[in-house]
């Protein structure tokens, strides 16, 4: 058993304040590495509401069961959601699954963390309840919750638009939604009303959906058709009752892949915004920004395995990584591949990686003094940070820094009064004997040698830290490797009518998991 390590990091403001997530809590540290505050994202027991299924609805449509409370005190999410719908009878099977005690991976731990450039706002996403939290930062290290919005599907990555007024949320279902960072009264009321109206329209459309007696012919099918009509009438009546069941929040569907989205980035060129999205099926899509996000400009195609992360170290240079053994550098505007930069060989030679597969989990362009123009890459279960340099709009390998544990996230901090900034790496020590002390936040002074210091940031023991088994922790920390497609027997060999069914059962683990995790 071991406590969870710090997982995600982000930099708040220019004063060297660091925000780190562990489990469901956020911790802030000052430039002197002392802890300033702790903020739990689950003040009240905000576990994923179960059996509040709204899955009968079209996935593209705004959920009605979100919360739009502007104040953190009114945590109306749970009550509102639980009364929102008794699940229709045919979902009974699904519900049974959802009633299993939530596994550690299903708990509401932070899965994404981002801060605005000015450090005044933090966006955190908790996994189990698929909720996007926006917090305000007072520039002194104290966080205040502003809003919680529960998404329909589990977010897989978030980005902020250039003006930092909109959060782009990419989800496991392949869709990208735009949420306003700050909820205005307008958004929560008018937006909610509009969403409710859209939902109602969809419901009426749905009411007419289904087969009719001209499309089915056997007696049995005709009988079930009648049954469906009866159920639909009942449901319509129920929906009529819940018409004003509570405000929803504004979320616009911008674009969508059919493949699972893994990464999103906001870019701009010639003063116009663009959205870049990377998916599990090797595509990077370049779409126009809001309000023309429906126009696809081009694709960056070249990866042969999943993409897990993309970043823009320079406005015109896109770097992507994932299951391939190289990093890819793109001119994203034209979709032209500039270069592939070897990673696996370095991992084998300098970080004792055996095996032929590597999964990039993070790419971190550095913009603070002493490391400007550098790009750090980390890989799942590899005890090293790989340093690259951006040179003439291209990527060049520099060196490998060996670290004491497996890096989970990286942040850069400019410390006031110091010439060069520091790189902070959250490490997880996976060997049982090594003791938990080697997990923590490690500091590397940027500059010539990346001089490593011991974890000077404290490992606070206060608060609610769940003690978990190693395997549970690793299930939470290591999610990227699971994106790799498993070798399935080709359905030619199974032959005949069973093939399609075989294809269905062979669904990859991540999607299956998404399906089972049930309703928001």
């Amino acid at each position: 058993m071991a406590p969870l390590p710090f997982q995600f990091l982000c930099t708040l403001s220019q004063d060297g304040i660091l925000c780190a997530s562990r489990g469901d809590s956020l911790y802030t540290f000052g430039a002197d590495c002392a802890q300033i505050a702790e903020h739990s994202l689950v003040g009240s027991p905000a576990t994923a509401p179960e059996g509040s299924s709204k899955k009968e609805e079209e996935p593209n449509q705004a959920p009605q069961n979100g919360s739009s409370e502007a104040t953190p005190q009114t945590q109306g999410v749970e009550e509102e959601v639980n009364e929102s719908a008794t699940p229709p009878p045919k979902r009974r099977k699904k519900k049974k699954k959802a009633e299993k005690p939530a596994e550690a991976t299903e708990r509401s731990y932070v899965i994404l963390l981002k801060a605005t450039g000015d450090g005044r706002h933090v966006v955190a996403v908790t996994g189990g309840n698929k909720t996007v939290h926006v917090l305000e930062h007072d520039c002194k290290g104290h966080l205040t919750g502003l809003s919680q919005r529960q998404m329909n599907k589990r977010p897989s990555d978030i980005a902020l638009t250039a003006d930092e007024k909109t959060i782009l949320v990419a989800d496991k279902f392949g869709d990208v939604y735009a949420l306003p960072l700050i909820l205005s009264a307008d958004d929560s009321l008018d937006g909610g009303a509009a969403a409710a109206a859209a939902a109602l329209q969809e419901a009426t459309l749905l009411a007419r959906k289904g087969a009719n007696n001209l499309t089915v012919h056997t007696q049995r099918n005709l009988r079930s058709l009648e049954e469906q009509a009866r159920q639909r009438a009942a449901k319509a009546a129920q929906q009529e009752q819940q018409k004003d069941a509570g405000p929803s929040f504004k979320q616009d569907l911008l674009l969508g892949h059919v493949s699972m989205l893994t990464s999103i980035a906001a870019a701009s060129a010639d003063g116009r915004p663009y959205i870049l999205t990377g998916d599990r099926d090797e595509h990077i899509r370049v779409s126009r920004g809001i309000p023309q996000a429906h126009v696809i400009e081009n694709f960056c195609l070249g990866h042969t395995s999943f993409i897990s992360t993309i970043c823009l170290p320079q406005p015109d240079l896109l770097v992507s990584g994932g299951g391939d053994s190289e990093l890819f550098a793109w001119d994203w505007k034209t979709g032209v591949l500039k270069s592939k930069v070897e990673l696996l060989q370095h991992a084998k030679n300098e970080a004792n990686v055996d095996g032929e597969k590597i999964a990039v989990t993070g790419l971190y362009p550095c913009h603070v003094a002493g490391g400007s123009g550098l790009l750090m890459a980390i890989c799942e279960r590899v005890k090293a940070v790989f340093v690259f340099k951006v040179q003439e709009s291209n990527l060049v390998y520099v060196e490998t820094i060996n670290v004491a544990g497996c890096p989970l996230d990286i942040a850069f901090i400019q410390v006031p009064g110091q010439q060069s900034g520091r790189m902070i790496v959250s490490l997880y020590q996976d060997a049982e004997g090594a003791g938990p002390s080697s997990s923590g936040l490690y500091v590397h002074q940027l500059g010539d040698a990346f001089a490593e210091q011991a974890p000077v940031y404290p490992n606070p023991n206060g608060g609610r830290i769940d003690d978990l088994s190693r395997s549970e922790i690793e299930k939470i920390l290591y999610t990227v490797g699971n994106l790799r497609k498993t070798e399935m027997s080709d359905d030619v060999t199974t032959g005949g009518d069973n093939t399609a069914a075989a294809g269905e059962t062979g669904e990859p683990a991540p999607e299956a998991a998404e399906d089972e995790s049930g309703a928001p």
Partner: protein
Amino acid sequence: MPGASNKKQKRADYRLARSQQDGATEMPKKKFYRQRAHANPFSDHQLEYPISPDHMDWAPFFPAYMVDPEELPEATASTNDDQLVQRQPKRMRQDVEILDIGCGFGGLLVALAPRLPDKLVLGMEIRTQVTEFVQERIRSLRAQHQDSNEFQNVGCLRANTMKFLPNFFKKGQLSKIFICFPDPHFKARKHKARIVSTTLNSEYAYALRPGGIVYTITDVEDLHNWMVHHLELHPSFERVSEAEQESDECVKIMTTETEEGKKVERNKGQKFVALFRRLEDPQW
């Protein structure tokens, strides 16, 4: 299950026999290629698809349209930055322009090809057995029409278009996309699996050139309403007027020649047709 293995054996025997007779003019029999009518578009399957349109080798599908290597002027094949592009496949004289998504047993393809002799027509189908049938069908038709050289402009391959359309086609490459009798996916939970959706329409708009047409036909009224709703809502598409729709030759073929269309006819069902034109992208 003794029945199943027996069926498997019969199918294998049939295929072996067919592969042994070179240039078979006899049409393949459907009964050896039937497959359950639904496939999960979200599962990984074991699909073959090119890394990008430039990597696609069309030679197995349109052998008559391949450019001979000698014809290729040396200047165009730049050897310097070839390391990135890897091994370039052979080039085609012209690109595929007409696509039938979910071509099924290929009725539309086979009817379209002779009427559009100067265009390349491609069918994409997610079910392996059915794809194989269409490929065999095209092979026999080509053998039967060796003198007239008909059916050289039609091909079929297995693909999941919902995921991998941009791997096969460049921006604006297509002029017509046919979506005929798609899987209705009645359950609301499955609506994301429908072939027409707000988000997927962007990909059709990407592959279609401005002025290109999306043809839809279905026997399910609700699905028709759904497709009209979502394509009309998409800023890149406008509905083609009723009059223009009537005068389009492809509409007639689509209504009468598809296998599913014939089945609906037999059952005296309804057919709903809707056409949508790809508009120019707005100023950016």
